[in-house]
């Protein structure tokens, strides 16, 4: 598919650092818990841009569980300085809220729990802003060989079953107008043992819009295998970048050696 020999596209695979934001600071927890501050939003955004990140996801992890809207002032601060695409997630539960974030300069908005609670919101956002702006984030938990959607994952005490199978939800959100899907495999999140290639491969089969892998990145080989084996469009990671375990230029050089198309 993308970028390999004989393909009909030269689209590069995307490397996407994810910055979890709490109270205006970038934080990271293990398995969604024990959050600690890792840096300033604008500084980190620019550092990743300079290192060759293809896109950024900025996720306000406090927003959704506490039922408040993402504070848009930091969105505009980033939009003023950054010249790569970025997506804002967290607490966007209305067309008006999405409009504020997009008008502040974000390229895309990502919705997760509000889409589960009100699936029609996906279609309303797609109609207003176009599918290309509308990313649906899915937190998926593997249980006895099956995959289930969880909601309100920003706060472990409020996390609940969404009552949906992951593949069923992936199909449904595309019908409703999602332009991209970020699949976060919760069993892998924060533990750095690799992406859930098996699950992502299953999701890829039913996903015609761009698919972004999330959860589990710990080594350059993990990126290579998720691109080569699950054919995802992008790979998202946080701690390996924030803690400088993997430098993006080195990662891209490695991926090029593996014949995976990446932007220089």
């Amino acid at each position: 598919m993308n970028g390999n020999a004989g393909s009909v596209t030269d689209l590069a695979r995307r490397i996407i650092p994810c910055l979890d934001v709490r109270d205006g600071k970038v934080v990271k927890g293990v398995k969604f818990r024990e959050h600690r501050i890792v840096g300033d939003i604008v500084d980190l955004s620019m550092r990743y841009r300079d290192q060759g990140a293809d896109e950024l996801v900025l996720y306000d992890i406090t927003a959704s569980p506490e039922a408040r809207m993402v504070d848009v002032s930091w969105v505009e601060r980033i939009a003023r300085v950054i010249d790569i695409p970025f997506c804002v997630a967290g607490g966007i539960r209305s067309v008006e809220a999405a409009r504020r974030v997009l008008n502040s300069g974000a390229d895309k908005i990502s919705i997760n729990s509000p889409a589960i609670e009100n699936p029609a919101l996906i279609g309303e956002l797609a109609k207003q802003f176009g599918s290309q702006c509308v990313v649906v984030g899915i937190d998926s938990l593997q249980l006895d060989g099956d995959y289930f959607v969880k909601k309100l994952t920003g706060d472990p005490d409020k996390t609940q079953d969404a009552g949906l199978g992951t593949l069923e939800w992936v199909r449904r959100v595309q019908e409703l107008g999602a332009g991209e899907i970020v699949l976060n495999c919760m069993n892998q999140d924060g533990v750095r043992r690799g992406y859930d290639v098996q699950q992502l491969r299953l999701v890829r089969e039913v996903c015609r819009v761009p698919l972004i892998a999330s959860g589990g990145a710990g080594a350059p080989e993990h990126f290579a295998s998720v691109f080569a084996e699950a054919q995802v469009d992008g790979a998202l990671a946080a701690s390996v970048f924030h803690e400088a375990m993997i430098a993006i230029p080195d990662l891209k050089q490695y991926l090029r050696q593996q014949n995976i198309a990446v932007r220089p």
Partner: protein
Amino acid sequence: MAANQLSVAIINSGGANINSVVFALERLGIEPVFTADRDQIRHASHVVLPGVGSAAAAMDQLQQSGLVELIPDLTQPVIGICLGMQLLFESSAEGDVPCLGIIPARIEALPVEAGLTIPHMGWNRNALVNQHAILSDIEDGFYAYFVHSYAAPMGPWTVARSRHGREFSSIVSHRNFVGIQFHPERSATVGQQLLSNFLRLQSEVGV
């Protein structure tokens, strides 16, 4: 002309997220005006036609502002970005609408094929096709950030091309008009260079 002597008008064609284009120009030392005012657009040194949303909605907005007749007659450098580039063409298959008719071709949907994601979203490689001042210091094979499902065919107007399912024009030019299918404001250093090159283009009159 120094950056501070330029007067850049960004045409209000509806849609959200105009700020990313505004901020990109501000990083180049420009303070653009965002307007649908005919006189302001006519007297600007450079005109930007952005576009987010659908071709039909944007054409409707331009019609209401009385700009459909004005834009093709502009003589200063004009750049259409993303949907704004598609509007420079004769018509679009997206909603089957007539567009501004500056470039004689039709915008068609990218092919839906197994293994190809639609929308075409992400960084794709571009090949240089024809010489143009917009390409100053731009290297063959450059990567740029695309987000679209419809695209312009190849033709004499093609300045650069890319491919996703089929080859398509990623940069076009015709007279004083330039169109860019990808988002220069989101294409890192390459995008900044292209916008800077655009600001150095001169009006047709007096060249």
